[in-house]
């Protein structure tokens, strides 16, 4: 029998089929947003232990009222100024025990980052968007200080030009080549030196 060439398949409609599928996936797709601000809630404390007395100067009060207005340390403030104000408060180093602080050393402000507490008070009618904005600014203030500290002590430990955020990302990244245990030590040290102390109250 004579060898017959296999008939060629008409692929002209392939594009149409592919378009159909493409449009289906375009419509159904939702690119997931899986990032956000991580927080840890305080555990419920039933014990009758007297809470330690905290000096007023070590507390940075941020009040967000039901109209989303901001009152910081009893003064009206715009949200864009909050980050800088929080940095100045945390970085003050009033009692001189904090060697890495570069603040004003104002005796009327916080003693050191370990004692400094930010107290965030919001009303039930505060909008969530405003609350997130304030949370974001406060986290940013901590991150600014931690990044600065990371750039200071990083080079001594062999992690050059890496700020705190990059250190954390590298620690999580499985493809990162480097001494992870040492990196973890540096991260823990920074976390210990500049702890996030954020207390929240709902009015």
């Amino acid at each position, binding site marked *: 029998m004579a060898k017959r060439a296999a008939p060629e398949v008409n692929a002209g409609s392939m594009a149409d089929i592919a378009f159909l599928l493409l449009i289906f996936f375009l419509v159904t797709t939702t690119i997931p947003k899986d990032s956000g*601000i*991580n927080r840890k809630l305080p555990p*419920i404390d039933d014990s009758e232990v007297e809470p330690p007395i905290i000096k007023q100067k070590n507390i940075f009060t941020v009040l967000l009222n039901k109209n989303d207005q901001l009152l910081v340390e009893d003064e009206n403030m715009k949200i864009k100024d909050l980050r800088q104000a929080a940095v100045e408060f945390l970085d003050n180093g009033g009692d001189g025990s904090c060697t890495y602080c570069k603040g004003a050393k104002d005796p009327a402000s916080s003693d050191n980052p370990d004692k400094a507490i930010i107290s965030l008070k*919001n009303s039930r009618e505060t909008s*969530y968007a405003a609350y*997130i*904005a304030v949370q*974001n600014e406060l986290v940013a203030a901590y991150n600014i200080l931690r990044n600065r500290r990371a750039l200071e002590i990083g080079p001594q430990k062999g992690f050059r030009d890496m700020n705190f955020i990059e250190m954390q990302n590298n620690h999580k990244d499985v493809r990162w080549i480097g001494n992870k245990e040492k990196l973890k030590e540096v991260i823990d040290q920074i976390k210990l030196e500049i702890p996030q102390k954020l207390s929240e109250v709902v009015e």
Partner: protein
Amino acid sequence: MSKFKKKKDGGLAPINTASLPDIVFMLLFFFMVATEMRPDTLMVQNKLPVADQIEKLEKKYPISYIHIGKPSVGYEKYGSVARIQLNDKFADVSEVGNFIGAERLAEREELVPYLTVSLKVDKEANMGIVGDVKQELRKVNALKINYMTGSGDALNNIK
């Protein structure tokens, strides 16, 4: 007459569309890979606020989602104030504890302590309901939470 016709014929050659399916397939594969089917239908409005100090949620640990927002179009009969959606139904604040319990039971035991509760809250919601949910989470000792946000300048949240 024929003189003019000839000229027109020799003009533009047709565009070759042979590689069109390849391009379309490329796009198709991208969307197929990037897509994630919603596990349950969303019954509340869910426009997330934006922030710029965000961390990526780690997928290797279990995550439970709690949606909060006002009922979306088609669910107006549930009112116009923000409500909680757990799985695929509206829930009361008191049910949050049970929901977390059920989520924990469904997870492998060694992963339970790493359970993160991701709060997907509409930006128009009030803090009252969010605070109530947070209090419930504290009661069941689910302390790792994440406020899910888009990325952008947080100052845009407040008008």
